[in-house]
């Protein structure tokens, strides 16, 4: 298949993602960061919370347009130009996951939790809602996510972003090596 539908190596994708930072600054003085859009969506809701009382159209309009674009990019790359080959996973990860009872099905994420059929199980909902909650809560508490801190913040040598990235990594290691095995062993049932 052509370069538009086969996976890109890190040395192509990484630099292109890095260029998003200067691109958004040059386009309209905007700081690359995706999770702020979650706040702008909450600002549309009629809450009485100060944190959400601002003009989301004026402040967040660009970010919401950018976010809608990401969904659109997902449609183009993931549906219209979908890679027909199954996802390749490192042998050691495949083995470690097999021990936890997680299979590699060729898709982006295990069918056991991320397929439509999996949504019939309340435990799937628990995993997805709790995982999402931590992402939304953590991103606002830390004032940014992977794009805002790990890419934009680090590139502008922001010490707070380095701290946030250390947290991202510590949390990821905890989730991978403690929380996930616990959950898969029946924890939280």
């Amino acid at each position, binding site marked *: 298949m052509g370069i538009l539908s086969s996976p890109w190596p890190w040395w192509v*994708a*990484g630099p292109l993602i890095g260029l998003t930072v200067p691109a958004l600054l040059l386009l309209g003085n905007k700081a690359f960061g995706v999770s702020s859009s979650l706040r702008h969506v*909450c600002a549309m809701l009629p809450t009485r919370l100060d944190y959400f009382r601002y003009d989301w159209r004026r402040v967040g309009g660009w970010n919401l347009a950018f976010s809608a674009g990401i969904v659109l990019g997902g449609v183009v790359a993931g549906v219209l130009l979908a890679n027909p080959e199954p996802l390749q996973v490192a042998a050691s990860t495949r083995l470690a996951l097999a021990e936890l009872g997680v299979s590699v099905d060729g898709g982006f994420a295990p069918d056991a939790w991320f397929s439509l059929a999996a*949504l019939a199980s309340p435990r799937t909902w628990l995993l*997805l809602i709790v995982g999402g909650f931590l992402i939304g809560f*953590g991103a606002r508490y830390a004032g940014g996510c992977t794009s805002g801190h790990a890419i934009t913040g680090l590139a502008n040598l922001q010490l707070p972003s380095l701290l946030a990235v250390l947290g991202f990594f510590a949390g990821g290691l905890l989730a991978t090596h403690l929380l996930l095995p616990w959950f898969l062993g029946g924890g939280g049932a």
Partner: protein
Amino acid sequence: MRNAASMAVHPDDCRENPVMEEAAVTSWAAWLRYLLAGTVFGFIAIRSEIIAWYRIQEMFRFDAFHMYGVIGSAVLVAFVSLRVMRAAGATALDGSRIDYPVKEPGVSRYLLGGTAFGLGWGLVGACPGPILALIGAGMPAFLVVLLGALLGTLTYGALRRFLPHA
């Protein structure tokens, strides 16, 4: 209509609460630019598979270089770009001065918030950009993750004055 400028701006928000500093996006051309920039980003995110739960597992198990390579080279390219823009005195398309993104000083909010975020990232294997790209790629489970993320955002807004930020 509410007057945005008179609304509360929290001192620890900085760019986080850009109420005071963001210029409104008014023209259709401008909206289209951001939509297109997002589309390109979403496309790259899918094609590089950084949105795959398994890639995140490989990263946190130190089994593959891919994610480190993507993030590392993205930071390097962004860093060099910002250096060049500063040196050249670059301005935005509309001629305005560029505000290089600065984060408010602090320690606890970044470590605690960052760890909470990392826990979620490790569990569902996707951060906010990838969640959106995966919804587009036709994985409805990530709509549930997005719902969870919005609930988390709302909860932070409700609890933030009780949380340590310094």
